[in-house]
């Protein structure tokens, strides 16, 4: 079994869907994506590198040998976890779209499957160009999903989404090629785009070169994450996207950015990361607080959850640049948890929207009386998102903040450049999250029953969630509880990879701290960031 099977199966499925009859398209795509999920679970069981730093399922295919571009695949433990997240969410999205999508169905399911291939390609690429190709390829299906099946403002949303991410990643590509060129100079004309070669090589570049490369890489990844101030495409895209689009967008696509930071930024440009970390942290904290405040005043439930993603991903970024295993493990865990709980929230909002054709908190309320099961899941996933101890969100949020807290220069084993002050301010975001999400629950779920007039918009759906919809939510809820109770299974599994990425950092941080001019560098970079 190889990763190629995993990657190509959805593509083959997409072709089948396109050729098949529209009425069975959804069943083909559900079958294919479920098969991919089963395969990926089997692969995860067979995977031999849990807990260690190695790369599993590695395969080599030559491509454009003149430029050293290959189609090498392979996954470390972090990537394997994210592959599982992707293969889990895709069949759920397909299943969740059965009633929502009524026109141009074949294309819809074909695009979803192509999107799955692209996302899996990002996580399993061992070659920079293959990574970039997959990274960009995710834009195309998403563009069409938003532009064809989205809400009223879909044209604007899809174009903005495309242009933001496309522009940002062009600079990322320039950064990649720059590193590859430097590598080629040192190798007397032999090009390579292998992640392994270039990471090792880039980390030996001078500090100023690393700074430029960091800026170039972040141009693409920061847009994708998204980090304040380049987050403005996200609320629009999320709000306009069809339910499955929002789920994939929040569940997996945003993680491509943080995964890019984990896979490329951290190993490639350690010196620049240390120098820029405070600036990035400040942006992340601004994002956490600013987006949380925006959430507070939202009337549109979907927009609220969309902005909460910006806020939540800020914690993830903090964990990434805390530069210690607790923070980084927390960040990776955050990627998975956010995918589960926010994905589920988007499903729930989609279900509500299918029934009432509104997402406005002022025109809808007290649904607990009408839809008790739906309300149960809504409260459950909101609590998971808020960080109720015992559920998944708490663990990762706590680890990210703890990692940030102890990431001061005086920490014995893993010195960092952040510290308690960063964690303290970011923690306000947790309080705000609890406020805006609970206010939302209070309005929509509890209180007096308030239903918009839905005469003339008759749907065949039952009042409360159908067995199909429960079937979508239960696996997500089960995982939320499992990760909440047993997070060590995942953190142990990824420890080797995480520590391998962080290995060079203590030394570099120590050097930076010992240098008297560090302060000046940081101040100068601040204005940059």
């Amino acid at each position, binding site marked *: 079994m190889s990763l190629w099977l995993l990657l190509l199966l959805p593509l083959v499925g997409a072709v089948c869907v396109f050729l098949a009859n529209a009425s069975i398209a959804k069943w083909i795509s559900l079958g294919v994506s479920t098969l991919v999920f089963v395969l990926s679970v089997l692969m995860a069981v067979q995977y031999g590198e849990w807990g260690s730093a190695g790369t599993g399922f590695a395969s080599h295919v030559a491509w454009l040998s003149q430029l050293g571009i290959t189609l090498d695949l392979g996954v470390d433990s972090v990537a394997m976890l994210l592959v599982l997240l992707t293969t889990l969410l895709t069949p759920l999205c397909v299943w969740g779209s059965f009633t929502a999508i009524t026109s141009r169905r074949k294309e819809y399911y074909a695009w979803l499957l192509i999107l799955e291939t692209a996302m899996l390609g990002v996580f399993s690429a061992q070659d920079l*160009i293959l990574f970039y190709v997959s990274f960009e390829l995710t834009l195309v299906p998403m563009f069409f999903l938003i532009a064809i099946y989205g809400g009223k403002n879909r044209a604007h949303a899809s174009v903005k989404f*495309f242009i933001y991410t496309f522009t940002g990643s062009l600079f990322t590509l320039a950064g990649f090629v720059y590193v590859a060129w430097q590598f080629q100079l040192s190798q007397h004309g032999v090009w390579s785009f292998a992640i392994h070669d270039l990471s090792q090589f880039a980390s030996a570049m001078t500090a100023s070169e690393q700074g430029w490369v960091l800026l170039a890489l972040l141009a693409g990844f920061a847009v994708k994450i998204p980090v304040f101030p380049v987050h403005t495409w996200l609320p629009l895209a999320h709000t306009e996207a069809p339910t499955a689009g929002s789920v994939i967008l929040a569940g997996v696509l945003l993680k491509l950015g943080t995964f890019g930071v984990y896979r490329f930024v951290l190993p490639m440009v350690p010196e620049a990361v240390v120098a820029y970390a405070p600036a990035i942290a400040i942006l992340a904290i601004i994002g956490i607080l600013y987006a949380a405040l925006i959430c507070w005043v939202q009337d549109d439930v979907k927009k609220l959850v969309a902005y909460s993603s910006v806020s939540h991903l800020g914690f993830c970024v903090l964990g990434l640049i805390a530069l210690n295993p607790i923070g980084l493990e927390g960040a990776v865990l955050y990627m998975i948890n956010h995918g589960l709980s926010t994905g589920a929230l988007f499903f729930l909002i989609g279900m509500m929207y299918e029934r009432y054709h509104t997402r406005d908190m002022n025109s809808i309320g007290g649904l607990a009386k009408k839809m008790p099961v739906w309300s149960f899941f809504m409260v459950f996933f909101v609590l998971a998102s808020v960080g109720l101890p015992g559920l998944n969100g708490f663990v990762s949020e706590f680890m990210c903040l703890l990692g940030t807290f102890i990431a001061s220069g005086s920490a014995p084993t893993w010195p960092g450049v952040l510290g308690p002050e960063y964690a303290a301010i970011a923690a306000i975001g947790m309080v705000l999250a609890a406020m805006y999400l609970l206010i939302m629950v209070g309005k929509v779920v509890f209180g007096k029953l308030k239903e918009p007039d839905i005469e003339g918009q008759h749907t065949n759906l039952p009042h409360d969630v159908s067995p199909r919809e429960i079937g979508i939510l239960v696996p997500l809820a089960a995982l939320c509880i499992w990760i909440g109770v047993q997070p060590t299974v995942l953190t142990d599994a990824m420890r080797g990879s995480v520590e391998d990425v962080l290995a060079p950092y203590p030394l570099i941080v120590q050097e930076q701290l010992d240098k008297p001019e560090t302060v000046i560098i940081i101040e100068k970079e601040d204005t940059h960031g």
Partner: protein
Amino acid sequence: MADRLWFLIPELIVLVGAVVCAIGGLSNGAAIRRRIGFIACGFLLAACIAVPFVYTPERIATADTLLPYLGKYIKFFAALIGILLVMSAGGLMDRKYEHAIKKGKATFSALRTSSGEFHALLLLSIAGVMLICEARDLIWLFLALELVSLPTYVMVAMSRWSKVAQEAAMKYFFLGAVSAALMLYGFALLYAATGTFVFTEMADVFEAQRAAGGVSVFGQIGLLLAIFGLCYKIAAAPMHLYAPDVYQGASAAVTAFLAFIPKTAGMLAIILLCSLVGWEDGLPPVLEMALWVVAVLTMLLGNIGALLQTSTQRMLGYSSIAHSGYMLIGVIAGPPLGIVAVLVYLVIYGATNTSAFASLACLSKDGAPVDSLEDISGLHKRSPLAATSLAVSCGSLLGIPPLFGFWGKLMLFAAGIAAGQLVLVLVAAVASAISAWYYLRLIGLSLLSSTTPQSESVKATLRWPLIAAVISAIIAIGGPLVLSSIVTEAQQAVLAPEE
């Protein structure tokens, strides 16, 4: 000498094809007249097949041109894309007239047909591109360039029976004459600087001049003027001003031709001229600066110009201006990677640009050609194949991975960065980002929008352009599979003769 004739066999095949087309077009037999396109394709295919047999290593060893392998690559792909271009022009000429003859409403008169001449001119122009590869002196180069250009003036004029096309042809011709004069003046100064017309001797003189302190002033001005003249052929700023009018005025199939064949010719000529002075210690600073400014202006003006258009052909015309700018990055970067990138990009651009124009060429609105953006709104409902081809080719021109265009851009970017031209590559990245706006607009209109009253009657009616569009869209998707072999060929094409 006999060996040199060997290399001209592909050109000779195409020239014979031109004669056969010209005569066949006047034939009384409708069966021959209506199959002129097939005849032209047949000769191009024959030229294509002949190329590998003509360019054997033993013969290349005796060649005395600057880049002896160049012809193998260019002739093969020029003929191959030429076939697509002939297909996109299928049904363009004489369709109504032939229809009337078939119905018995008109009788055949040799004076009233133009299909034969059109295809003959098309083949002559392609032969011109092929001849540029074999140029060993400035005279040959100039004649070959004019052989490329002169037929295109006529093709523009005869492509449509409208005043717009006549105006476009006049503009194209007069400005083309000015640019040719500029180029010739540059050639004269180059002769003054070196005392010879022969490339290999000129290269030696320039090398001696460089050793003695630098290329002479005459030489530098000569190169500058010649390259500015050539900027007209590749539609680069500041010589691009004619392009939008001409590209809009001509019919889409001819515009596809204009955007590829003369552009390839100009690019090759620029590469040849630059290789006279060589890239080893950098191009002369004045020349490099000029090319740099031209590249930046072309990329920005082309893409920003395209943003403002309401006519599809004009928009794609501006986009093809911008692509010249991208290619100039490769010229500035120099061999081997930069020139390889340009050669690969020419092929990729040729295929995908043909797809874009062919998918416009196959459309008609109550028998009239389609022009405004609104006409293609909601095309996917009426002609899904044409709409998809247009969207795929726009995606490829924009450089969305993994489509063909992305790999071309990647190679140009890599070459630019490897030559230390970071700013140039950043400008190209910004320009690409700008281009996303209008390519997405075309994609959105054709695939996503709904039909408007104005676009209701727009349908894909011409069979052959549609087939050309679909084939080249398939190339845009599947091309990356053979990319490695194309790059290998391009690498061989820029090899210098063995001493």
